[in-house]
């Protein structure tokens, strides 16, 4: 098999970082471009595996849906739930605006 080097472009790295909400320095972009390309080249070995008739595995112990009675149980108190946040308002998490007024 011919191994083509699947090198990520600098722009692709920046795009993926944006999707993942990560701020990368120019040095990081360069480093990740190289390191991620290396890993992506390594995993190309999977192209050799024949999987035309194979179903994907996402759960290994063959469990299916697990049900329980729809009954409320005691849960954490509001105070406990908010104990890790730096900003809260009247018992709610306070977050930045995500929609504009218009």
């Amino acid at each position, binding site marked *: 098999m011919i191994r083509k080097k699947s090198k990520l472009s600098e722009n692709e790295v920046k795009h*993926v970082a944006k999707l993942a909400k990560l701020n990368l320095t120019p040095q990081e972009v360069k480093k990740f471009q190289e390191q991620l390309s290396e890993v992506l080249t390594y995993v190309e070995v999977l192209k050799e595996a024949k999987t035309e008739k194979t*179903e994907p595995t996402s759960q*290994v112990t063959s469990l299916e849906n697990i049900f329980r009675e729809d009954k409320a149980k005691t849960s954490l108190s509001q105070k406990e739930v908010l104990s890790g946040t730096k*900003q809260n308002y009247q018992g709610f998490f306070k977050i930045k605006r995500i929609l504009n007024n218009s």
Partner: protein
Amino acid sequence: MELTQLSINQVQEGLKKKKFSSLEVVGSCLEKIKKTNPKINAFLTVCEKEALAEAKKADDVLNRQLSPLEHQPLLGIPIAIKDIFCTKGIKTTAGSKVLENYLPVYDATAVKKLKEAGAIIIGKTNLDAWAHGSSGENSDFGITKNPWDENYVPGGSSSGSAAAIAAQMAFGATGTDTGGSIRLPASFCGVIGLKPTYGRISRYGVIAMASSLDTVGCFGKEVMDLAILLQIMAGADGFDATAPKLPVPDYLNSLEKPIKNLKIGLPKEYFAKGLDTRIKKRIQSVVENLKKQGAKISEVSLPHSPYALAVYYIIQPSEVSSNLARYDGLRYGFDRTFFGAEAKRRIMLGTYTLSSGYYEAYYLKAMKVRTLIREDFDEVFKKVDLLLTPVSPTLPFKIGEKTADPLKMYLSDIYTVTANLAGIPGLSLPAGLVSNLPVGFQLLGPQFSEELLFQVAYQYEQKSEFYKNNLV
């Protein structure tokens, strides 16, 4: 003999016969931690005050009640917890600056069950941040060093738990294993590490890495200790839908059974090029030991093994990118600028392989090859009862040796990721020393065959007496 050298089973006996108190046991561990931890950095948090208070309470119960250890097998015994398990009121960092100040408001199920069994939480152990790593070097709070030689890595990601057991700072420890994070450090530190079947122990309250692979397990010095710990932690809790409601067998029952005529396979793909010949030699001596006991050894094949690491390094980062998406610094912890280099690398890789246009080529393809790997194991377990393989292709490596080359680091997991992909249990055991550094081997069995793994491990332990190699 120092108290800290004892096994869990021996501490139980000593407490029962009043040879020593829980306060003395806890005190001996704390002393060891004070002496050794500044050098090897196995603990991120030591719960000194709380542990001493708990020990006094345990001694009260031990003095008052007739046989409390029958109901609480770990009463008064110090256990270390990997810092990725939520512990109520005790800082839980996952080894990352993102969670530097995170104080959980509830206990993980595994921790809750240990506490209910009387265990004393002695502290929280260091790890590669978010359990991403094979060496312990990705911790945001400093490297854990190998207690056998401080120039070497202890293996990761459960680096602190393995090092704490090897350096005798606790009698048992919890760990998580997504691609080898229990078995690799166990082998590098010369202790025993169990990665149970996927779902055997609930993951509720354990900070998630890759959800189709994550497994909770444990460390100890002797096989019986691991059986005791699994007995306590196993079983469904109603909070982890992947933990099946299967009965939990009595894991101590099978230990004494002889292994004559048991069929053990050596998968040839695990002994091919790339394996250090000195490790191969150590493993041959293990095979000889089992042969002498009447086990039937044969060579077998798991033909899709060469694809396992590639499958793992698609599925795992994909699931990592999804699980770490929740860290936004709004409800707890700090924002995403606090992620370290390895977390960023895996989030990036996973985001890419899951992104539109690449999903089929990477994630879906990997899940299909995962099926082939799983079927290899199904086939081979029709022929043999269990498998014996190396844990790591190399000896413990030097600190800094692989940090500049992530792919080289990832290759450390080549023999361990298959058990996670197939959801089967793996038990890593000491196979002796090479150049005064520990070497391990692993036993792999069908899903929910932990009893069988313990049985073979125990019989090997009795004949090889590997525990005599313990660090003092």
